[in-house]
């Protein structure tokens, strides 16, 4: 057991920090073009696609190095990259399951954000029960004709391509009739409608497909393999953001301490109120435990130990913590936690969502984490079954093998 960073990792962090200090844009990135340029610059520096093999345009770096980059970006408040789903999930899926033609055609442009990708999985009636999805793809010779509706699609309005889960066989068990295909979003049969979420912004969309066309050459894997492919996709969590995430919490925490020193009650700063002090101490303890646990995951990854089920524990842990964190922060801040734009320095925080950063937005955003990418309840099912080995539940739709 040795929790010191290796000298290579320390040197890598120094280089990365110097690069960020020299290159992070000094102004907010407003247009898509500006965001693409920043993304491209990061890619060329070796800070995007870090875990991808070099053969596909990646950098073949370690999970620790990727975590350090995310950490340094959080520390300096760098604008996020834009093709996160593509680079984190869709690209790796194509690398594992795709054809040579698909790899050649899609991967490089994904890395450089020349083409933006979205994920077409959830449907209005298929959330946690994703395998119940109804979007149909019918065989029309050299292509499929796609009809249906998707929801909770990130980057929908700016996406050029989507990875689609659709039903290609309705006569077999629901998990077995699903296929995975790449869909061109820039066609008349695809309509994207932004979805206004509780933060008042629109980072998600609904996507309507009406006789949309998906090419046969864009089928990932074989017909009927979509569910299995989606499982590996959802499990492709590599701990890459484990340090950066905690650094964002830590920066927010320091803003909270600052607020507690400036705001006053009973003629003295809040920081001298024992109830506030107890809350701060508890938050910081939980925050640090998130960091220690993140280091533990990175250590396991660096030894090539698989953590696919353990990533459910990580996801459950930080998303539930994030809710408690912002709930407690708003208890302390009172109305100062409600501003949708900052009126004091300590009201401004990095929400990492790309939205204007105030406590209110972060508080509202924290409700998303325990729902997306498998809700907390789904994570607990996975942990119970796959880690603890508890018996499967009796379910009405469970098909006998």
């Amino acid at each position, binding site marked *: *057991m*040795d*929790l*010191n*960073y*290796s000298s290579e*990792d320390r040197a890598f962090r120094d280089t990365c920090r110097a690069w960020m200090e020299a290159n992070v844009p000094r102004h907010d990135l407003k247009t898509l073009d500006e965001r693409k340029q920043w993304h491209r610059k990061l890619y060329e520096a070796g800070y995007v696609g870090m875990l991808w093999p070099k053969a596909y345009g990646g950098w073949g770096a370690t999970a*620790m190095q990727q975590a350090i980059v995310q950490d340094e970006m959080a520390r300096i408040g760098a604008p996020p990259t834009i093709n996160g789903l593509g680079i984190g999930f869709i690209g790796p899926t194509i690398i594992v399951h795709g054809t040579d033609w698909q790899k050649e055609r899609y991967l490089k442009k994904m890395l450089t954000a020349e083409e933006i990708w979205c994920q077409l999985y959830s449907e209005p009636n298929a959330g946690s029960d994703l395998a119940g999805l109804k979007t149909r793809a019918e065989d029309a010779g050299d292509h499929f004709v796609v009809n249906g509706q998707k929801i909770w699609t990130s980057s929908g309005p700016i996406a050029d391509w989507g990875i689609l889960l659709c039903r290609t066989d309705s006569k077999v068990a629901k998990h077995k009739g699903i296929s995975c295909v790449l869909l061109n979003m820039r066609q008349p049969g695809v309509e994207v409608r932004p979805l206004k979420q509780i933060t008042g912004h629109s980072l998600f969309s609904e996507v309507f497909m009406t006789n949309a066309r998906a090419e046969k050459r864009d089928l990932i894997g074989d017909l009927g393999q979509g569910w299995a492919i989606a499982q590996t996709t959802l499990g492709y969590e590599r701990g890459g953001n484990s340090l950066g995430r905690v650094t964002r919490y830590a920066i927010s*925490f320091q803003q909270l*301490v600052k607020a*507690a*020193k400036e705001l006053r009650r009973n003629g003295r*700063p809040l*920081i*001298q109120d*024992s109830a506030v*002090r*107890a809350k*701060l*101490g*508890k938050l*910081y*303890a*939980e925050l*640090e*435990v998130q960091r*220690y*646990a993140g*280091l*533990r995951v*990175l*250590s*396991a990854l*660096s*030894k090539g130990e698989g953590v696919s089920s353990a990533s459910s*524990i990580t996801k*459950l*842990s930080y998303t539930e913590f994030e809710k408690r964190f912002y709930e407690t922060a708003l208890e302390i801040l009172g109305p100062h936690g409600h501003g949708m734009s900052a009126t004091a320095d300590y009201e401004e925080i990095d929400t990492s969502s790309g939205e204007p950063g105030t406590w209110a937005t972060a508080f509202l955003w924290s409700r998303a984490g325990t729902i997306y990418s498998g809700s907390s*309840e789904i*994570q*607990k*099912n996975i*942990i*119970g*079954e796959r*880690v*603890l*080995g*508890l*018996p*499967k*539940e*009796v379910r009405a739709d469970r098909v006998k093998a």
Partner: protein
Amino acid sequence: MDFAFSSDQQLLKNAARSFLDEHAKPATVRLLWDDARGESESLWKDMAQLGWLGLSLDEAYGGAGLAMVESAIVLDEIGRAALPTPYWPTVLAATAIADAGTDAQKKRWLPAVATGDARATIAFLDGDLDWSPDATATRAEKSSEGWRLSGAKRWVPWAHVANVLLVPARTAEGITLFLVDPAAAGLALAPVQGMDFGTRWVHVTLDNVRAAETLGAPGSAAPLLQLLMRRGAVGAAAEMLGAARRCLDMAVGYAKVREQFGQPIGSFQAIRHKCSEMLLEVENSHAAVYYAAWALDARADDADVAASVAKAYVGDAARKVCGEAIQVHGGIGFTWEYDLHLYFKRAKALETMYGDGDYHRELITRMVSGV
């Protein structure tokens, strides 16, 4: 960056697990619960033989020259067994003698601890429920024939079996640590029966008790006591972690075989989700305990914060996990006959020791806010 145990550390863990599985079964624990002294001389000698008592001591004094991570590994397993033992009070007191003692003091006590011939404990608390050295109320005065101590120390673990007591007292020079003979005239021991029969507490009254020696220079004890509190806290957290993991294992095992409504109860989400939440708390506690232990050993910048984080976090987590294990078991978990309460009570007793959660959360706020 390597969070996994080294192969030597893993060997130590495996050896501790198999020794305690064989020699500290619940039936043994229950015998010790009913024993007046409360611990086993033969197990103590075994622990000396295994090298556990001298684990953190210098090789010159018969120790193994290891440190907090190794102590945490042993304590994790002791907690898993809920073994009643003055192990941690003794080993912690020995680190104080190793850190601040004279050569003569070290020669007198450290080999004796390592061989199992001496037990020791530290009397942190006075009448106030305040773990800060500043709250020390016991007084010591220097006279021509040495120091004289008067005061009342509360909740001293295992003082009735100790060969030496480490007693902080207030002197003209400031807070000073004394080595006190428990058999000295004017010293009275009053055992207290707590809910955990495996944690023996003693109230110690000192009425003009003679102490020949201070540990370290008079007035210099406050920083040492704070360091001992941090070590004590991390050790207690390790022991709570072991108790919590035992409770989790028992709950999961039971949920797989106990049937209601014609199904194993572990197939119900109400139970499965509870067990998953318990696992989350245990894994986070593991990270907290071993991070803090490593940070103390490495003298990391955040070692002080990490010790308080471990105690505050794991205290809450262990209470939750052990309590939920009773809930998963239902009625059987509430019986004296079933073993769950051994671990539940051990974790609960440790939660109060070396600073409770509120105390450590206050320390954390002070350290991170600078106020």
